[in-house]
């Protein structure tokens, strides 16, 4: 019952940004956060509901690898990609919004949903915004 949202506006057409999030040839350029790389041969994308989405991120400093295993649950070009990580129960929804011109907003919404609250209506009722809560936590722990 946790929810996180990250948003960024990119200066590129929506179709292109959408493809970047779905094609290994693009993902290899940006998927790993700073200090890591994501080699092409470590990326598996089967872009259909039930299809596998796996990435192996390698720490540049010590060579340690981290594998993310997910399954696509919804793909709606060029608007939305949803995958879930069976290991953690986390559901990640990427939404692509055309802002006009060549600007595109990408919104990443992550929810960690218990099995009993799987339906969209239940999620909406039970999820609590955690990114706002992060700031609240900091005031408590400081």
């Amino acid at each position: 019952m946790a929810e996180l949202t990250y948003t960024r506006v990119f200066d590129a057409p929506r179709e292109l940004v959408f493809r970047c999030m779905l094609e290994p040839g693009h993902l290899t350029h940006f998927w790993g956060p700073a200090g890591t790389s994501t080699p092409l041969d470590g990326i598996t994308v089967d872009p259909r509901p039930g299809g596998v989405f796996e990435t192996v991120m390698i720490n540049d400093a010590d060579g340690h690898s981290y594998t993310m295993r997910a399954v696509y649950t919804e793909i709606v070009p060029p608007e939305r990609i949803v995958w879930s990580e069976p290991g953690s129960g986390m559901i990640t929804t990427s939404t692509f919004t055309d802002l006009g011109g060549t600007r595109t907003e990408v919104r990443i919404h992550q929810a960690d949903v218990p099995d009993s609250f799987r339906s969209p209506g239940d999620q909406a009722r039970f999820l609590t915004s955690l990114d706002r809560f992060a700031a609240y936590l900091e005031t408590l722990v400081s």
Partner: protein
Amino acid sequence: MTVVDDRLDATFAALADPTRRAILAHLATGDATVNELAEPFDMTLPGISKHLKVLEQCGLISRTRRAQFRPCHLERERLDAAADWIETNRRIWAQRFDKLEAHLRDIQDTGHG
């Protein structure tokens, strides 16, 4: 990275309730008894005790066994762990977005050139 251990799941579930967050905010100012914690809420002592049990089970608070009024104590390490996880996850996406921005610039430059 996006590995969520069971205890962290329980922590986030515990934090998802406004009454429990208010209890934690109270305890951040110092230890308190069940009676003191119940005061600001329109809630019975058993109701508050139920919330305290949830907080205790995920390790966010502890209660001394010996003292008569068993004061509650905030376990800051658990809160830190939750805050750390959120921060790490936020950073991963921020850095990923930075790289995607650069990648989009590269391929569009190439396309136009």
